[in-house]
């Protein structure tokens, strides 16, 4: 039954090469921790992606309860944390995942740097990787405000002041992010929510896709 269904689709779209490409590609010895334990450094990128998937899933569940509004944001997080079944776990995974993803991405960056893997012909993938790093930091910064508690508000205040100190365009960036030149309030919260949930994830998905396609096109870098 499943085979027939597969054949039916394959006959029309020729999907075999697409998934064989993912399934069949061979993994060389020098990146395989089963052969050289020190090859665990090649796991950091995969673990970063693993946490990213968890962040997406836990984030989707968080939005079922979270309300991006100054009156109710904190209340909804408090409710989620203390009343909702497993709410503490879902929020906990999103909270700790946000830190772990930075750690893993940092280690992945160091691995790529110290193995010289960014060199020709992988310059473009390195650039995409650095952009992913920036997007992740942006996700961390915007997500920090969303619980709308004291540390969120005041950390964001400092962050926006730093954005405002950029020469020439600082004030514009600040107003774009905060929704107002002086107030950090309802506008700021909804903007940070939109950036955290729509804009940056969209950028992240595009960059990740490019990152992975380039790995498949170039193969993993050879042994040192």
């Amino acid at each position, binding site marked *: 039954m499943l085979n027939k269904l597969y054949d039916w689709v394959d006959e029309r779209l020729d999907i075999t090469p697409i998934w064989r490409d993912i399934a*069949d590609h061979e993994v060389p010895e020098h990146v395989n921790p089963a052969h050289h334990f020190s090859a665990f450094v090649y796991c950091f990128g995969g673990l970063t992606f693993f946490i990213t998937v968890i962040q997406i899933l836990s984030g989707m569940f968080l939005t079922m309860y979270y309300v991006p509004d100054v009156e109710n944001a904190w209340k909804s997080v408090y409710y989620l944390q203390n009343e909702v079944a497993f709410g503490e776990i879902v929020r906990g995974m999103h909270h700790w995942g946000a830190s772990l993803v930075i750690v893993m991405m940092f280690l992945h960056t160091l691995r790529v740097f*110290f193995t010289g893997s960014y060199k020709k012909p992988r310059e473009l993938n390195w650039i995409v990787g650095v952009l992913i790093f920036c997007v992740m930091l942006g996700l961390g910064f915007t997500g920090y405000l969303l619980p709308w508690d004291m540390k969120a508000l005041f950390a964001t205040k400092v962050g926006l002041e730093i954005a405002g100190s950029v020469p020439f365009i600082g004030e514009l960036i600040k107003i774009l992010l905060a929704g107002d030149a002086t107030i950090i309030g309802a506008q700021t919260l909804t903007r940070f929510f939109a950036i955290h949930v729509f804009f940056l994830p969209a950028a992240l998905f595009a960059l990740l896709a490019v990152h992975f396609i380039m790995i498949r096109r170039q193969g993993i870098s050879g042994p040192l």
Partner: protein
Amino acid sequence: MHRGKGMKFVGDSRVKASNRMPNKPKDYSEYPGKTEAFWPDFLLKEWMVGSVFLIGYLILTVAHPSPLERPADPTDTGYIPLPDWYFLFLYQLLKYSFASGDYNVIGAIVMPGLAVAALLLMPWLDKGPERRPSKRPIPTAIMLLVVASMFYLTWESVVNHDWEASKAQGQITPKDLGLVPDIEIDENSEGYQIFQSQQTCVACHGGDLTGVGSNPMLLGNELTAEEVEEVIRNGRGAMPGGQFSGTDEELKTLAEFIASLKEE
């Protein structure tokens, strides 16, 4: 397929090997024996690594519930801000005199900006074909120095932060949860008048006696009049003593008033 000693690898979408592309792994068939297919052999190993990682992750999540401070209150100007831990090194950088005040733009924009730009342009700053860290000492040394400074700045930031005050200033109070006890305050009583006339009382405990910020609410307290008097004279916890500026008689009246703020 065009490569692989006549072996057929269906799934190899890599750019065709040519002399124009260095630093490219050999053809898969050149690795004898130890190369393995992604599916299912290597994926299984990745899943094992992922599972071990997930266990640690879940233990962390269960052992340390994610923090939540009291609701944002923009009027509380005394709050000491703190960013998330991975921005602490930047936060610390802004405390040094060469990167703060008039030079704030150096610490806030120029230095991080240069770092990100250098990272982006790395493939062109370090163009040599050598990949081993020991064969390219300058990039290696610079990166090690940067990482060491990030660790050092984060450490400095952590040891110089008053974590106890930080914890106290964010505490969720009953007022935040809408748990203000239903107690009627006699606004004509002498005790209430004395309370309102004392700046220091109102500043911390609020004109409505529900407490300001993390300072305690007086409504529904569990103290006797003598104990209240004792606290006002000598202080307790974060509250300093000797703040009351009236007579002993007034202090007694005030203490009795506060002690009377109990639920029926």
